[in-house]
């Protein structure tokens, strides 16, 4: 079996984002780029599956659609333990474009289990995984919190309202993962970092695809009114404010 983990390259989650060009472009000065948190957890789960030799996983590959600037993030995934990597050399303009490029790369390939994150922490689109599955005509399971392999099938736990459901799906399948898929992201060890330099990072030129959506501009959240403080000895005052001022309880 072969596993593919799709990774997105995003600003560190503590970044205070700023924009330039009349709020049309992200100001990338000083931004630390990281693997999208869910993708990092997916990669961790993929490697756990591979570590268990009974699963018989030949390889874990990471795939990314983006320009050369994302290579440090890809190398980080290799350092964590992915066997090889693919980068499609295209600006990731929207989810449709990214999914189309990935689908094109995967056409002749035979990955059994494909991981995508439930969203990327930059555009919060929740789109690439489902789109990729539809383009490849593979089944997809979303809101996934665990993946196991049994008798050549994927046994997947997914979140439903108020609980969980365990489903089995034949491979190939796209698992769109959220919290719970792995406890902590795996960290690169020194040996992994050394080895990452020599692992294969294949660069593929994109196919011609137009984006279907376009960001016109960005806005900052409206500043919240200053916090009103209440005497800790008298929380009754808070209840009174919530009832009569905010009119919310």
């Amino acid at each position, binding site marked *: 079996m072969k596993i593919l983990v799709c990774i997105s390259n995003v*600003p560190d*989650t503590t*970044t*205070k*984002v700023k924009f330039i060009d009349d709020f049309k472009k992200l100001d990338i000065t000083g931004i630390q780029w990281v693997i999208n948190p*869910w993708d990092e*957890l997916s990669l961790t789960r993929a490697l756990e599956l591979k570590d268990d030799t009974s699963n018989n996983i030949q390889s874990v590959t990471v795939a990314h659609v983006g320009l050369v600037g994302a290579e440090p993030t890809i190398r980080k995934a290799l350092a964590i333990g992915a066997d090889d990597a693919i980068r499609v050399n295209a600006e990731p303009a929207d989810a*449709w474009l990214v*999914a189309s490029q990935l689908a094109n790369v995967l056409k002749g390939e035979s990955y059994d289990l494909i991981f995508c994150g*439930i969203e990327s*922490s930059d555009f*919060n689109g929740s*789109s690439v*995984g*489902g*789109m990729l*599955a*539809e383009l490849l005509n593979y*089944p*997809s399971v*979303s*809101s996934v919190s665990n993946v196991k392999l049994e008798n050549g099938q994927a*046994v997947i736990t*997914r979140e*439903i*309202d*108020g*609980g*969980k*459901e*365990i*489903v*089995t*799906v034949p491979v190939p399948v796209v698992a*769109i993962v959220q*919290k*719970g898929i792995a406890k902590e992201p795996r960290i690169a060890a020194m040996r992994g970092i050394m080895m990452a330099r020599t692992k294969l990072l294949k660069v593929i030129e994109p196919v011609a695809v137009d*984006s279907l*959506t*376009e*960001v*016109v501009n*960005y*806005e*900052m*959240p409206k500043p919240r009114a200053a*916090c*009103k*403080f*209440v*005497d*800790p000895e008298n*929380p*009754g005052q*808070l*209840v009174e404010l*919530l009832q009569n001022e*905010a009119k*919310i*309880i």
Partner: protein
Amino acid sequence: MSVLIFVENWDGKFKKLSFELVSYGAKVAEMLNTDAVALSVGQVEANELEKLGRYGAARILSAVNDNINVFDSQAFTSIIAGFAQQENAEVVLLSNNNTGKAIAPRLSVRLKAGLAAGVSKLPLSTNPFNVYKKVYSGNAFSNVIIKTDLKILTLAQNSYEVTETAGKSVVTQVTAEWNSATVKTRVTEVQKQTGKILLTDADVVVSGGRGMKSAENWGPIVELAELLGAATACSRPVSDEGWRPHEEHTGQTGKIIAPNLYFAIGISGATQHLAGVSSSKFIVAINTDKDAPIFSAAQYGIIGDAGKVLPKLVEAVRELKGK
């Protein structure tokens, strides 16, 4: 032309989220000078279906098939895509919940329609079709143009007022296509809690962080939640420690919620935590540290020890509720 709204049901019932979705879809239909058509899949009683009309659905399609026994994203995509074509939809609207996230991207490919996920306002304009959604996990917002003729939108939960209209609607019974032989998802086990208010549905949420010190101290949080008819939540370290169940973890990597009122108790307000709760209409913070970032996100604050403040707060709420 039409705006097709996929309205999910829970054991044959709709909830606030459904009415919010229909209210939004009806308004978009009005902007496009067309009708809002609600699509329900699965068995729902007539009086429940008729409720959708009160929020502006001009027509309601009730698609049923006794063989539907699992949520399979491919099969549901086929059903919705079929009705989108039949109804000549200009916009297909779903919720940005688990179900919507599973179907909308597949639908986008199937119908070759641009998708904007998690929109939280009415379109700024319909030509070009310009929608508003959060980006960078709530640290910014964006105006996005969908360039295709057919558009797919998912609506962020609790982002639009439920609005009743005087409209009347017609319910039509139709058949949902379902071929069990080709459905690939098979359910082997369901674990469901009943009787608890769902975190994602709750109007009020009482949440505790590491400042609560240990699992044993959760009593007053649970009590406060019960008094307010609220759901309980927590920060990530709290669920990592096992003080509270994982389903309660809110934030970037946990649940993203938008209640009317969020109590953050002993929570510092890290960016990743705020990413899940910053859409709350009101935030109340209780924290010993006057410089905790949570106070910049909160409208009301108490600087103090939760262990001392909470019992008094519970008493004050109990008095208010007369219990």
